[in-house]
């Protein structure tokens, strides 16, 4: 009963543990960061500085300024192909939506399987390209560590396993489905402990700079 057991584990204890670790880890890390001392900025803000303006950078930093595009836009686009494809596959696929509905109670219409497979394929190819870039670029080679490669693997695995399950490849469908769910659960459980935490931290990090710079009236 091997396949059944894996799928049952993935739908049951695996899912429960992954979600518990996800919540536990995110809270741990955020609380651990934000209970560190934070001196109040006493400098008089520039006239017209606003917190709303500060928060804008959380959104605006999503796309590079034109001054930098010539040097960074190509890989930024590849990165967005990965992120966008990933988002479509996670948020557009009906079984995923049902999972989200089961967990938090909200849902929306899904997209056809072919669209999802295409998006996931694009995402996977982009992710492979990004890994190649990381391995080939002297800058990225220098600054990369275990987290970068491990998080890459953890983020990548749900794509081929999901596609293989969708197309009934790799032998036993039930096992593949269970394995796919397990890779998703590993992603959730790992999220708080590695760089994938940027899915949450990006807002805090941008917001921190946004607040500091908006007090100065400096554009970001």
């Amino acid at each position: 009963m091997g396949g059944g057991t894996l799928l049952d584990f993935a739908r049951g204890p695996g899912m429960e543990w992954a979600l518990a670790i996800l919540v536990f880890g995110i809270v741990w890390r955020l609380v651990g960061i934000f209970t560190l001392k934070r001196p109040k900025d006493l400098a008089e803000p520039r006239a017209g500085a606003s917190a709303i303006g500060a928060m804008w950078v959380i959104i605006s930093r999503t796309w590079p300024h034109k001054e930098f595009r010539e040097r960074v836009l190509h890989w930024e686009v590849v990165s967005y192909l990965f992120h966008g494809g990933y988002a479509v596959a996670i948020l557009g696929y009906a079984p995923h939506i049902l999972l989200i509905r089961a967990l938090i109670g909200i849902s929306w219409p899904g997209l056809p399987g072919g669209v999802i497979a295409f998006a996931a394929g694009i995402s996977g190819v982009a992710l492979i390209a990004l890994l190649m870039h990381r391995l080939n670029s002297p800058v990225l080679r220098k600054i990369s560590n275990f987290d970068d490669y491990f998080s890459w693997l953890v983020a990548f695995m749900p794509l081929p396993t999901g596609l293989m399950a969708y197309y009934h490849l790799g032998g036993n469908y039930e096992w593949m489905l269970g394995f796919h769910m397990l890779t998703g659960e590993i992603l959730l459980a790992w999220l708080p402990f590695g760089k994938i935490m940027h899915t949450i931290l990006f807002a805090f990090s941008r917001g921190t700079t946004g607040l500091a710079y908006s007090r100065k009236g400096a554009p970001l």
Partner: protein
Amino acid sequence: MSNETISESFRKAGMSRRAFLKFCAAAASVLALSPAEAGEMTRRLAQARRPDVIYLSYQECTGCLESLTRSFSPGIGHLLFNDISLDFDDTLQAAAGEAAEAARMTAMKKAWGKYILVVDGSVSPKDGGVYCTAAGKSSVADLQYAASGAQAVVAVGTCASFGGLPFAAPNPTGAVPISEIVKDKPVINVSGCPPIAEVITGALLYYVSFGVPALDRHGRPVNFYGNTIHDRCYRRPFYDQGLFAHTFDDEGARRGWCLFELGCKGPVTHNACATTKWNGGTSYPIESGHGCLGCSEPNFWDRGGFYRPLSTPTGHWSGAQVLGGAAVAGAAVGVAVAGVARARQNKKDDHKPDHKPADKDHDRNG
């Protein structure tokens, strides 16, 4: 014990070879045999001796036998009177009590070593087998004895194949599938709750013609259990297009869209429902508007609710409590780690005389 061949038994019953061929055609169709295999089956069945069959029941509900008696093609009449020699079945036979036990012993002894043992229901080895006994014998002892004289065992239904309902958590009787007890004889699992009638008869006919069929990893004949319901479902294109019924009475349900959202387990259920169908090829559950329960798979009742989609948690836990607890624990660990770290910051400050307390942090980014 019967010495006549199956084709002889047809003729003896006043039926021509045409009736036999027609019967073989029906069997081949159910088994999805190729024309060459169908021809081979016809040849072999014509010469095969009618096998003796002993049918035993343990922890079960008789649904499997109910299903079997509704076999259309090959019809149960053929099966019982022409194809096999059903020597013992306590539900179908007239005899009861000690007479029945005696009849069974006689039948088994007569065909010792040659009969096919068909079993429905799980057996219960727990606490010395006290939870399932007949005529003073535990189900386990009874099965072991009966199996020792069989040439092969066919486990009919999910209880016999995988433990079934009695096996469901918390499994009070310690129920186990037949294959847990019978280790030295081939065991063919014909799972389903119940199995499709034609699948039971088809599996028996295949065994009579060719011997033990190719089995999947759960011991089931690949002929019937090689595909999932989802693979052969007429609603599959809707799944691919992302068109789902959200409730049992919405527009999608009326238009015959996919039932995945309503908990259909078709994608992970191996059975012949979508092709052989039920009640003489009439329809199958999905065709009637209800998702597959996954009844031919192990543990199908323990996989969360029947109406819980396959991609969602089986739901044996209280999400709010567990996640709330995880959040509280995370906050506690976070505060503790930051607290320890801050204490180290302050401690180091104290024993460094060259950094006076007045020397504050100017850089707010610190």
